[in-house]
C-alpha cells in the first residue's frame, strides 16, 4: 500500500516548485511565467494531497487541492486576459520590456 513514501511526494513537489520558480524568474515570455505559476500551484496542491493522505483519514487536504485547481484555472483565465490586454496596449508580452512601474 505504502510503496510510494511521503518523501517521494515531497521531493516531486519540491522539484515542481523549483521548476516553477525557475520559470518565473528566468522566462521572458509572460505566458511562460504564467506556466511557472501553475507549476508552483500544483506543487502546493500536491503537498496538500500528500500530507492529507499520510496524516489521518479526514480528506481536508484533498478538498484544498480541488480548490487550488479551481482557483488556478480561474486565475490563469484572469492572467491570460491581463496578458492579452497588455499585449494590445504595449505590443509585447516580453516581461522585461514591461517596466513602466520602474521607480
Amino acid at each position, binding site marked *: 500500500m505504502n510503496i510510494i513514501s511521503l518523501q517521494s511526494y515531497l521531493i516531486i513537489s519540491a522539484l515542481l516548485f523549483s521548476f516553477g520558480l525557475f520559470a*518565473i*524568474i*528566468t522566462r521572458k515570455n509572460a505566458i511562460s*511565467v504564467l506556466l511557472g505559476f501553475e507549476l508552483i500551484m500544483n506543487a502546493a496542491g500536491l503537498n496538500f494531497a500528500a500530507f492529507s493522505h499520510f496524516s489521518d483519514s479526514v480528506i481536508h487536504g484533498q478538498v484544498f487541492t480541488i480548490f487550488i485547481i479551481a482557483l488556478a484555472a480561474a486565475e490563469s483565465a484572469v492572467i491570460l486576459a491581463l496578458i492579452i490586454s497588455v499585449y494590445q496596449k504595449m505590443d509585447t508580452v516580453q*516581461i*522585461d520590456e514591461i517596466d513602466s512601474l*520602474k521607480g
Partner: protein
Amino acid sequence: METNQLMHPWFPVLILALPLLASVVQLFAGRRLPRGGDWVSTLMILAGFVLSLITFADVVLRGDPGFRYERAFNWISFGSVNVTMGILVDNLTAVMLVLVTGISSCVHVFSMFYMHGDRRYPLYFSYLSFFCFSMIGIVISDNLLMTFMFWELVGYSSYALIGFWFEREAAAEAQKKAFVVNRVGDVGFLIGLMIIFYVVGDFRFGRIFEAAANGTFDRSIPIFGLPLVTLAGVGIFLGAMGKSAQFPFHVWLPDAMEGPTTASSLIHAATMVAAGVFLTARIYPILTPEALIFITYVGTFTAFMAATIALVQSDIKRVLAYSTISQLGYMMLGLGSGGYTAGLAHLFTHAFFKCLLFLCAGSVIHALHTQDMFRMGGLRKKMPVTFAAMLMGTLAISGVPLFSGFFSKDAILVQALYRYFTEPHLLRLLPFVFGMGSAALTAFYMFRLIFLTFFGKPRDKKIYAHAHESPLLATAPLCILAVFTLGFFWTGTVDIPVPSGEVKIPVGIVKQGWVQEMIVEPAIAAGHYENPSLMEDEPAHKKAEHLVEGLSILSASFGILLAWLIYIRKAVSAQAIRRRFRLTVLFLENLWYVDRLYEIVIVRGLHRWNALVFQFDQVIIDGLVNAMGCSGEWLSRGIGCFDRVVIDGAVNLTATVSQSVGREFSRLQNGKIQGYVFLGILSLCLYILIGVM
C-alpha cells in the same frame, strides 16, 4: 509810603519785556514793516527809558541808600533746593536801568541814521533790542543764576552784533574771538557759581550775602589754602574780566571794532563792558580783601597797558577801544581799592561820554568813509556839531574839571591814594601811580585824536571835500549825550577849582553828590571782613583828595599840552619821537605782544597739543580699535572656516551619503518584476538561513 516797596512794581519787568518784544517783532516782521521797523525798537526802548526814569525817581529820590525791593518766584524745585527767578531793585539797579535804556535810546536813534540802507537793517535793530533785553536782565536779576543766563545772552548778542557784517573775514574772526575769549572768563564765573551754590545752596544775592556775613563760607573747607569765598569771588570776577575786557581777556575788544560803530558804542557804554563792572559791584559783599587786591592789580595793569597802546593807534575806533579798556581798568581799580562808589560813578559817567565819543566817531566815519586818523584833519569847520560834542566827550574822559570824568576818575584815584595812606606799603602805591600816569596818557591820546581829526589842515583833500555834517537824526543824540558829560549831573553841585586862599570858593571839587549818597556799599557784609584800611580816616581822606585834585589837573593839562605841542604847534616832531623810542613804539604797536603771545602759547600750543592728541588717537586708540577689529576679523575667519569645513562638511556629508545611497538603491527599482521576485526569494532564503542558524 511803605518802605522797600515800589510804586510800580511791574515796571522793571516791563522794561525787560519791551526790548524783547521789539526784538521778536523785528526778527519776524521787520522786513514787512515800513522803514524796516526801526521805530518799533526805538519806541520800545524809549518807553523803557520813560519807565526807568519813573522807577529812578521813585527809588533814588526817596533818599534811602539801603533801599531794596525784591520779588521772586520759584522756578525749579528739586529736593530741598529752590531755584528762584526774580527781580531786585535797589539804587544801583535804578541808576543802571536809566543808564542802559537812556544810552540805548540814543544809540537806537543814531543807528537810524548810521545804519540807513544796510542790507539787514531790520535784523540789526532786532539784535540791538535783544542786546538791551539781555543787559536789562542782568541789571534787574536778583540771583546769580539768572545773572549768568542773561550774561550769556549778552555774550550772544555781542557775538551777533560784532559779526553783523559777517561777509567780511575780519568781522567773522572778531566775533568768534569775542565769543571764545568771553567763554574762557565764563568758566571762572561758572566755577564761582558752583562754589556758591555748593556752600549756600541758593543763588539769591540776599542769601549769598547773608551766608557770607554769618560765616557759612568760613566753615567750609578751603581749597589750596584759600577760603572758598575768595575763590568764588575771584571766579566770578574772572567772568567780569571777560566781559569788561580786563587783561588778559582784553584782546577781544579792539577786534570787536569790526562791528558797526553804533554797536561798538552800545557795547562800550551801556551794555556789555558795563556788565562786568556791574557784576563786580553786585557781588561786592563776598569779595574778600585778597580778592579785592587781585581786582585792584588787574585793573591797574589793564588801565596802564591799554592807555599806552592807545598812544600809537591810528584807527579812530581803535583809540576809543583801548581807551575803553583803560577806563574799565580804572573802574576795577576803584572797586578793588574799596571805592565801591567811585568805581560805579566812573561806570556811569564813562557810559555817557564813551557812548558819545563812539557816536561822534561814527558820525565822522560816516562822513569820510575812513577810520584812519592820519587821513582826516580840519573837520572842525565842516562838522561843527560833531566836533563840539566830541570835544566835550574828550574833555570828560581826559578828566578836565567841571566835566564828569574829572569827578569820577578823581574819586577812584583818591580812593587808591587813600588806600596807600591807610596801609603805607609800596605795592599799595602802585595803583595810584599807574592810575595817575594813565590819566595823563588818556588826556594825551584823546587830544591827539581830536587834533588829528578836527584841527590842522586836511591831509586827504579828496576825502575832505566830501565831508559833511550829519543830519539832525544823528546830531540830536550827540547833543543829548554831550549834556551829560557835564559834571554837575553827577555831583549835583558846580564847583570851580581854584587854589584855596584868596578866592573864597570851596576847593573840594570831588563833592558829595547824589551818586556818593545813594550808591553806597551794601551794608550787609561791611562788618564781616574787617579790613583796617577801609575804616574811616577823615584826615587821610581829605589829604588824598587835595593831593589828587592838584595832581590830576596837572597830569591832564600835561597830556593836553603835550598833544598840542606835537600835533598843533609841531614843536616836537612825532616822527622824531617815534625814531627815538623805536623799540617802545614797536612794543606798543604790537599791543604789548599779548596777541602774539596768545598766538604762540595758546593757539600754537593748542595746535601742537592737538597734533599730539591726534597722533595718540591715530596710533594708540585707532591701533587698539584696529587690533580689536583685526582680531575679530581673524577670529571670525577661523570660525567661518570651522563652519565651512566641519559643520557644513557634516551636513553635506549626510546629504551626499543619503543621495548616493539613494541613487545606488534606486537602481534596484528597475521595474523588472522578475528581478523583484528574485530578490524577494533571495531575501526569504537568507531569512530562513539566518533563522536556521
